[in-house]
């Protein structure tokens, strides 16, 4: 491995979303929320081995214990939130 897990992580995340969307049909707002957390996360983190490990773990678990789907979604959201890309405030140049 060259050190970047970007493509692999994207694939795993897609699988996780697909799996969860079937299990969270009663609350269709959950998946878009998870996707937006993913979008806001830093690119370094999204390509990291750490994210790969978390994703792999969550995916394996959700496939074996579907009754805990929200636990794993919540876990992933928390991790993604912790790695939210810091927005540089370019708005501060008020006249």
């Amino acid at each position, binding site marked *: 491995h060259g050190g970047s897990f970007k493509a692999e992580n994207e694939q795993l995340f897609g699988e996780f979303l697909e799996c969860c969307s079937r299990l969270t049909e009663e*609350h269709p*707002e*959950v998946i878009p*929320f998870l996707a937006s957390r993913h979008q806001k996360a830093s690119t370094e983190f999204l390509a990291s081995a750490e994210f790969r490990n978390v994703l792999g773990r969550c995916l394996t678990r959700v496939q074996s214990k579907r*009754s*805990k*789907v*929200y*636990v794993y*979604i*919540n876990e992933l*959201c928390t991790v993604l939130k912790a790695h939210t890309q810091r927005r540089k405030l370019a708005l501060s140049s008020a006249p």
Partner: protein
Amino acid sequence: GAVPMEEEEDDDDPENRIAKKMLLEEIKANLSSD
């Protein structure tokens, strides 16, 4: 005699229920702050 009704859908894990509640509350909070 009457057959007691069994709760059918009790695969709802307590941990899962808490996580679901937290998640839905966070989503709601996010929507209202937008």
